[in-house]
């Protein structure tokens, strides 16, 4: 939800599957990795105006959604191993171009901004449709990488949504890519109670979790490239988006009310020697502990 509304987002033979990253360069065609990124407000800076009870966005820094930086890093690592190019794609207002420049400064080859007033008010349905149409316009691609979710909306719906719009297989919550070649990928998906290895043919869509890597910092060369890069802006007609599938009109969900949750009140604080404070605390919380069947 909240996607750009906030503007800030053939079965294969099993083959021998070993551990570690095995890479086979067997295709002449260049691999194309597409990373979908979103510009979001830096959450640490989000403050509530106590008088009006609303979000203060004045002076709040705009950053690349933290989860997306892992997707960028993983795409760069795949390019380093397999060759090819990485394109970053973002949907948002004109200033979201900054997020794409940041991606380029990390080493991404190209950036594309999808921006049009007609996209305003998009929910995750319309956002994933718009991004899918933009990917389609790019032509050939092998892998689409997304962060598992955006830090402002927290929906985790856009990645799988893109896969559904493009009728591609998906591996969500990826914590490790075990194997990849020009035709297939094996990746570990993180679940609540463990992880599973999933094999998929390419092209497919991945959403990645933080555990997958440590994103690199922009290099000097990267920063220079970012400054010089020309970033095309694609409008609704450029990606042949149907007017009734984008923006507010194309979004099945509507926000009817926004409010600030009642702040949690600070409670009772015990100070002094642990010999005194611990029994005081135990007295207060023993009911919960005993009640839960401890």
């Amino acid at each position: 939800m909240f996607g750009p509304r906030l503007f800030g987002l053939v079965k294969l033979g099993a083959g021998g599957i070993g551990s570690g990253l095995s890479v086979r360069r067997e295709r002449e065609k260049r691999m194309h990795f597409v990373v979908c990124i979103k510009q979001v407000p830096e959450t640490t800076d989000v403050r509530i105006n106590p008088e009006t009870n609303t979000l203060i966005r004045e002076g709040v820094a705009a950053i690349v959604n933290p989860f997306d930086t892992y997707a960028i890093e993983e795409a760069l690592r795949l390019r380093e191993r397999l060759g090819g190019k990485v394109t970053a794609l973002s949907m948002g207002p004109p200033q979201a171009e900054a997020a794409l420049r940041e991606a380029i400064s990390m080493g991404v080859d190209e950036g594309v901004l999808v921006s049009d007033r007609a996209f305003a008010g998009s929910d995750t349905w319309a956002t994933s449709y718009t991004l899918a149409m933009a990917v389609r316009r790019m032509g050939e691609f092998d892998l689409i990488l997304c962060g598992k979710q955006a830090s402002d909306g927290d929906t985790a719906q856009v990645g799988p949504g893109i896969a559904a719009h493009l009728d591609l297989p998906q591996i969500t919550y990826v914590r490790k890519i075990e194997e990849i070649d020009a035709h297939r990928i094996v990746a570990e998906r993180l679940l609540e109670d463990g992880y599973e290895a999933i094999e998929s043919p390419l092209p497919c869509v991945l959403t990645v979790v933080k555990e997958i890597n440590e994103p690199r910092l922009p290099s000097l060369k990267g920063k220079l490239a970012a400054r010089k890069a020309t970033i095309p802006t694609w409008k609704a007609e450029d990606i042949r988006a149907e007017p009734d599938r984008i923006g507010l009109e194309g979004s099945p969900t509507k926000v009817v009310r926004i409010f600030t949750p009642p702040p949690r009140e600070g409670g009772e604080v015990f100070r002094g020697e642990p010999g005194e404070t611990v029994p005081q605390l135990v007295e207060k919380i023993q009911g919960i502990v005993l009640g839960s069947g401890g």
Partner: protein
Amino acid sequence: MSESPIRVIEEKCVGCGLCVKACPFDAVEMADKVARIDLTRCTLCGACVEACKFDAIECKKTTAPAADLTAYRDVWVFAEQSDGRIASVTYELLGEGRKLADELGMKLCGVLLGAGIGDRAGELTARGADRIYVVDRPELAHFQDEAYAAVLIDLVRRHKPNILLCGATAIGRSLVSRVAVTVRAGLTADCTGLAIEAETGHLLQTRPAFGGNIMATIVCPANRPQMATVRHKVMKEAPANPDRKGEVVLEEVAAELLKGRTKRLNYVPEVDTVVNIAEADLIVSGGRGMQKPENFAILHELAEVLGGGVGASRAAVDANWIPYSHQVGQTGKTVCPKLYIACGISGQIQHLAGMSSSDVIVAINKDPDAPIFKVATYGIVGDLFQVVPLLTQAFRKLLKK
């Protein structure tokens, strides 16, 4: 195409500024006594339209043709299971779904997909479901994104549910995002509140955003089913009544729906995690104040005595003191236990985003000014290395362990 979806009618605007105050996104400002809307910030939530006493703001609302929504009946709950074990979030959804179904005068139905799971349907009817749709096929033994989505899409198209609820789990979110796109339904993620709007019968879906800094209520007026994922541990589980019976419908599906392109090669349970913190009622969590990995032993000990799980802040995980699966917060897990004990955690907003909806929060920290105390129900200012062992000792005695 590029006509603005929201605009200020300047002749009507008196410059009173009510809209500026009403805007939750700081997207309206006054310029020459006329409201100006910054479209890059505006989310078209309509708060300013409502606040304006002079009808000076116009927000383009969808003019979708009044689709025949009456054909869509019943409240569905996707029953997540693994190896035949029903996930507990399913029971929470049945508890909440029952209320919604009763209010709408509709049936509450469970959807159970798997292999050899037919006999589990009784567990769902015992928890309040009137009817269970079962698809029992060997290909569905484990969750597979495409096959599960294809089957669910098929059931939705044939039976037309009004509401479809699913747990906001890794599987749930991966599954229903695909379904919603394909059936052109609205989907709201990670809801913490559900209600029926009296006048319209629409589902009011409330969810946190911005790491819990704001809440949004969302409706889906013109599309069905109304789909939502619901956060675990927020709704109350439906109690089990073994005498309660319901209808079980064995569904046949076309074989081609079961063919996904992905293949599950293996599954590895997280051995390190004694208790899955997303499920835990009691969590003992450690942060930077733990100083080194060995020190987490005292938290594990307390958690074990309490029968709970061990959590951690990002700082502790980033320092490699404890695996990522323990991380609570914005880039980790969102937890909602009955009791959350934060040890040596300062309380950065990203951490609070993952645990502030816990019933009771206890903070143990040396620094009396740590922000964690602002959200804590109870706090101890002190050295956690003294406090935690004493707590363990006290509860061990109390619980006779």
